[in-house]
């Protein structure tokens, strides 16, 4: 099958069938990624909404359960993710100016940050497991405060594990994607003219970071202000 392109268009091995030129391809891919992130936003949105509804309904229990979050690990992890977003942004910038080796460097650092986040998250989960705070697995919750109910505290932990678990799954996928980008950059696939995979993985990574930026205050911080 011959791929006839319009007169004047530059042939490029990375140009896919539907597109006239690389610019159109890049714009379309970016649009596609933004639309995909919109679906992600709606999915997490459903969870955030459920969390906020229950937090309002069962305020004392959620307040009490929220105090069992490990603020130190949460804060460190937030810092780790913000740093990873910085290195990702630098990596994308390097790709845009065609510096392939620099891309590899920044992506490797981003990977390191991503793995650090997941490792710390695992430690945190382990602590919850140890404290019998995993819903459905011998959940225990003792509190003398008025209006605090074990079932409702369990609801907090259920939402905590589902939300951070879904976020961790997205981190895992992100780490896979960044690894792929690193290998491709190492092989020299990206040039000044063709680098939209780097940009799009970057968008995805920033989005996953952004979800955490909302998860952290909602789950760890806002209930601490109430004494």
């Amino acid at each position, binding site marked *: *099958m011959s791929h*006839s392109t*319009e007169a004047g268009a530059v042939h490029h091995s990375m140009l*896919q*069938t*539907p*597109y*006239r030129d690389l610019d*159109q391809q890049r*714009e*379309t891919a970016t*649009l*596609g990624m933004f*639309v*995909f992130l*919109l*679906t*992600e936003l*709606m*999915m*997490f*949105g*459903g*969870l955030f*909404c*459920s969390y906020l*509804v*229950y937090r309002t*309904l*069962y305020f004392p*229990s959620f307040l009490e359960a929220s105090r069992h979050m490990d603020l130190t690990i949460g804060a460190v992890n937030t810092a780790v993710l913000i740093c990873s977003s910085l290195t990702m942004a630098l990596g994308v910038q390097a790709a845009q100016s065609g510096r392939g080796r620099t891309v590899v460097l920044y992506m490797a650092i981003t990977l390191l940050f991503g793995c650090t986040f997941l490792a710390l998250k695992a430690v945190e989960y382990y602590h919850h497991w140890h404290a019998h705070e995993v*819903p*459905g*697995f011998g959940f225990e919750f003792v509190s003398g405060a008025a209006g605090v*109910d074990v*079932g*409702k505290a*369990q*609801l907090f932990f*259920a*939402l905590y594990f*589902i939300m951070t678990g879904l976020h961790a799954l997205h981190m895992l996928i992100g780490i896979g994607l960044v690894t792929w980008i690193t290998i491709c950059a190492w092989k020299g696939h990206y040039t000044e003219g063709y680098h939209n995979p780097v940009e799009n993985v970057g968008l995805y990574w920033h989005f996953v970071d952004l979800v955490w930026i909302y998860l952290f205050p909602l789950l760890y911080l806002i209930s601490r202000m109430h004494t």
Partner: protein
Amino acid sequence: MSAAPSVAVEPREHYLNVDYGIRSWLLTTDHKRIGILYMISITVMFFIGGLFATLIRLELMTPAGDLVTSDTYNKLFTMHGIVMVFFFLIPSVPAVIGNFVLPMMVGARDMAFPKINLLSWYMYVIGAAITLYCIIVGGVDTGWTFYTPFSTTYSNTYVFGSIVGILFAGFSSIFTGLNFIATIHKLRAPGLTWRRMQLFLWSYYATAVIMILGTPVVAIALILVAVERMWHIGIFNPALGGDPVLFQHLFWFYSHPAVYIMVLPAMGVISELVTTFSRKRVFGYEFVAAASIAIAVFGFLVWGHHMFVAGISIYSALLFSIMSYLVAIPSAVKVFNWTATLYKGAISYRTPMLYAFGFIGLFTMGGLTGLFVAALGVDIHVTDTYFVVAHFHYIMVGGTVMAYLGAIHYWWPKMFGRMYPEGWAKLSAGIIFIGFNVTFFPQFLLGYLGMPRRYHAYAPEFQVLNVMSTAGASILAVGYLLPLIYLIWSLRYGEIAGPNPWGSTGLEWQTTSPPPTHNFEETPVVTEEAYAYDKHPEMDFVA
């Protein structure tokens, strides 16, 4: 709309004969082949869903629950709903017709993301396979709505498996919507501005927006049901502090707009049919286009009308009721404008046009009865009765299935290069229209008289109307089987269709039939608005 005429030289290579291997179909990234794959798969699912409907109607012939047990009956209406909604209606007009037609209508060589498009079909097939497996090993009995806490705590059928199947179908829907949006935004042919787009494209754009924004929410709602079912956490279980009404909110946030996923693309199809067979530009183009977007936007603000009796506050119920009335405005704009398009048009009563007429009439009835159930007081009376069943079947079967069949007949010559047999097609369109009304009109009466839905036994005074409904269903079944037979027959024996048998100005008709793999020999250039029949008196019927 004019494009450089492409010269047809026989025998020429087109998307069907370019390669006959099974791999060339299963690994294809050609949007036309993916459309055909979707068509075959949803046809299979349609007849499976239809089988359940047949059993339901047979049971309801007599007031006593004598054909199946009540447990089996629960499974029958649940599986009818799941199969028809998630595996037939949602992918029918969008994925089959959209995949085949949409890229050609924007003058593109393919969808924006051909591989994701193929992945979408595989997601659909995996989801359908999982769901069929659950059906075969024992079925599911929660109703297609999976209401909690029954689905999470009490049902001992294959709820988890069905949810996984639906999640896959959801991904398929998201990928399709993603492709529609990117293709319409970025791959339009030179000169094809937004205001020159055929109305089909506006409808599909609005549909895609709903697919993108709604589907992830139902996905997370169903994931929460699955999680609760597995670990007994109590997210929606009131005994453990959960709130079952929250599930209904999350579920209907998608599942009400999902109705517009079914009917908006159908409206796009009707706009094409009405203009082609009236030889006129559509009346009030801008309004019909804007109505599509308005329906998509309003559609997201009315989900609460499914929950008027679920214990939501009277204030939110009032707002949801008012918003539901507002959806009627853009819907009516469309109906009025199609009707106005007919005025002084050169109307030809070909099969697709018959289906378009059927759609307009039945959709109007479905829409007007929608106003009944949007009214708070009337809704209390008819909630969970056959009135609601009749109402949504008028929209989904009378609307979407009519438009789907109209679209299949209209684009059949483009898909396979052959005409369907006109006489048989008109006959079955008539049978379907009659069968549909005989099946579902009595259900309005039944519901108004107070017959509840989802029971396998009923009071004896309802029997006459139920027998009518069952008789209508058998007429309808004949009407659906006929096209299956003559369309397959026409693949080999149908008259050869030219590139543009309807003399349509649509961009998709400006290439050969069946089209080459990349749709157009050279990129078309669009120089005028859509449906400019007045400027092209030479465009006329060939077949």
